[in-house]
């Protein structure tokens, strides 16, 4: 056989040294490469899926999930199907019998208070109704169930109790989302909004947006000159400045927040100083903490590095020759800066602003400690529902609304500035 024979193979197709057709061999090599690349990406992909995508999906699902009522009161839910909740009449004996049966099972499984707690989010008093009735239902051996159950607790004789149970028996509920915009569904199905003075979530959402924008603007105003200074200094000085910018990262968040309290409070360092030099009187001490001002100041300080760093990394790449060229062509320093230098920093401003804004929206410990009543964020409410009231459904709905708002801002940003323009370095 000649060399050409080996290369072309018996059939005339091009083959490799081991006799495989070139096409197959090439495909295999490419596949191996692709698998290798995939294997390299896989750990990150799995990590992101498990720690990010799945929890968020789970959270979104929690905000509509409501299987607990049907799970714990299956007979009652079935029996209530034929009851007209708008009739103004109590359900019939069969429903009461089903409730007693369900309560007995629930009491044995210790789930009666659990469903009571769920329904208590919708109507106060459900918690003790179910906790107390679990014990009492066990003692009801035979009918008439209606009479005996109402005797056990007079709340069972109220139509609204049954309306709430029926309204929240489906497995999915819009209730949490309605609550997150201060609305609720009345038993007849119409949606009713809370009086504006009693509304809480919409107010907090609006405030969170306004305060986060304010914090973004103050970090930009303070961060831009710092970043410019660092970017234009020789390496020796700029390295030191960078360390100073990063220094707060090495201190606990709580320490940074509480030191602002020591500085800003009415008997604090700044007020003491202003009184000492006679700028304000003893009675005119400024209220700079436990209000929105305090929250903006403390959070601006905490989030400043997130603005400075992207700005610096972008400014670093702008050649100083641009400015020199502009001035040598006759531009005054200000137009040269504004028309030549500044447009080049926009990608950094975009990156910094997005970072700061998104971080600000989610902060809760700093506003909790220094925000008083006028500086709290929606995240304080979310934390409350996660940690204290255990109303995770509502917390999830509030979180989902917040997520949606961030998405809207992101799309707006993309439309106005263009996301491709963003540069982190």
């Amino acid at each position, binding site marked *: 056989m000649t060399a050409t024979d080996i290369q072309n193979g018996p059939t005339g197709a091009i083959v490799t040294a081991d006799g495989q057709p070139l096409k197959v061999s090439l495909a295999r090599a490419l596949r191996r490469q692709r698998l290798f690349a995939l294997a390299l990406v896989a750990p990150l992909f799995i990590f992101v899926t498990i720690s990010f995508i799945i929890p968020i999906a789970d959270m979104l699902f929690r905000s509509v999930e409501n299987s607990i009522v049907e799970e714990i009161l299956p007979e009652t839910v079935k029996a209530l199907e034929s009851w007209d909740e708008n009739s103004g009449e109590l359900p019939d004996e069969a429903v009461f019998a089903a409730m007693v049966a369900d309560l007995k099972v629930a009491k044995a499984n210790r789930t009666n208070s659990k469903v009571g707690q769920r329904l208590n989010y919708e109507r106060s008093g459900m918690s003790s109704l179910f906790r107390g009735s679990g014990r009492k239902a066990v003692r009801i051996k035979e009918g008439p169930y209606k009479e005996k159950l109402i005797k056990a607790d007079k709340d069972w004789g109220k139509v609204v109790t049954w309306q709430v149970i029926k309204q929240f028996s489906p497995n999915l509920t819009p209730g949490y989302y309605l609550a997150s915009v201060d609305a609720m569904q009345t038993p007849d199905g119409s949606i009713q909004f809370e009086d504006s003075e009693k509304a809480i979530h919409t107010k907090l959402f609006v405030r969170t947006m306004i305060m986060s924008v304010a914090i973004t603007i103050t970090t930009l105003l303070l961060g831009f000159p710092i970043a410019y200074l660092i970017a234009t200094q020789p390496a020796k000085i700029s390295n030191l400045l960078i360390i100073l910018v990063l220094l707060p990262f090495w201190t606990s968040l709580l320490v940074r927040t509480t030191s602002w309290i020591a500085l800003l409070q009415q*008997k604090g360092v700044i007020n003491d100083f202003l009184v000492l030099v006679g700028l304000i009187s003893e009675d005119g001490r400024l209220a700079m903490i*436990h209000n929105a001002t305090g929250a903006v100041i403390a959070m601006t300080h905490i989030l400043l590095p997130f603005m400075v760093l992207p700005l610096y990394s972008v400014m670093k790449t702008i050649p100083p020759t641009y400015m020199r060229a502009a001035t040598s062509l006759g531009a005054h320093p200000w137009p040269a800066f504004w028309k030549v230098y500044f447009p080049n920093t926009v990608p950094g401003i975009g990156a910094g602003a997005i970072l700061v804004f998104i971080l600000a929206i989610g902060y809760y410990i700093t506003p909790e400690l220094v925000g008083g*009543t006028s500086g709290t964020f929606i995240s304080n409410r979310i934390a409350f529902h996660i940690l204290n*009231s255990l109303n995770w459904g509502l917390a999830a709905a509030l979180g989902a609304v917040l997520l949606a708002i961030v998405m809207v801002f992101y799309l707006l940003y993309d439309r106005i500035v263009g996301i491709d323009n963003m540069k982190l370095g």
Partner: protein
Amino acid sequence: MNSFKTALIAAAVASVAAGAVTSVQAETELVVVSWGGAYSASQQGAYHDPYMAKNPGIKIINDDSSNAAVAKLRAMNEAGNVTWDLVDVVAADAIRLCDEGLAEVIDHDKVLAPAPDGTPASEDFGNLLVSECFIPQIVYSTTFGYRTDLLASKPTSVCDVFDLAKFPGKRALEKNPINNMEWALLCDGVAPDQVYEVLGTREGVEKALAKLGTIKDSVVWWSKGAQTPQLLADGEVVMGSTYNGRLFAVIEEEKQPIAMLWDWQVFDLDGWIVPTGTKNKAAVMEYLRFATDTQRLADQAKFISYGPARKSSAPLVGKHATLGIDMAPHMPTDPANAKTTLLYNYEFWADNRDDIDERFQSWLLQ
């Protein structure tokens, strides 16, 4: 010099040997969750250290997560991996954990030691056993402290908190309706035994908020128990509510010019629950029998000014471990301090907390 060297080597060898011994014997690690700070320290001194000294096979690990215990336990339970063995919670949280099936039901007389005179545990704790899952340790109260040097006269009633003319200055109140609403109604002329009846109605809630509204502009709202002592010490507020043990620390240990106002203090309980699904149930029960006996509960009062939950412990309360002062007069349960008191109404707040809290928070935003 030589003997010093020998002693040093001997000490080193001994400590290594001791380390080796304990590492062999420490087979069971109990994760005990509590509040951290001075409170965990008091438990360490009164319960953990003596127990570990008696049982070298047990190692107790502290976790300061009690303020998020209910949420974390629920999450652990959903994930099917409960890593805690014993959790210190306030009674309201214990009731909720029991309701959700996240805490073990305890047979108090079987698990807990009887009093020294043989009285069964259930009688010794009496009506403080507010849940079948809950083992009370201490009675604490939420009450007021005031600056002795910044006020012209001495406040004597909780209603002085609402009197800006006589007691000008800022006040610290918890950013939470519980207790504040009760005090507001009491000072608005509602009879003590009708407070919850009134608060259970919409008009009652508005009435309480209207009363709080008279001082709203002078209130600093706190969310962590340590804030009020700090605010008082800095002179930021002239009076404020917090837990009595925190005030004891700032008055007696830090020697700040602050005094207690016990009028209408609100009693609450703090104690243990055993989480459902703990892997060391037997060991935990054994520990509980020791840590909640009459002497141990009395010992805790040496470190912190909270009253022991057992009746039989009260006569055993002695002096503070380091300050050497008599602790009995600092107990919220001391007759001189407990002339007018409220007991946290667990059932009322379990039913109405969500609703009233929502209204309270929206009132704060107005």
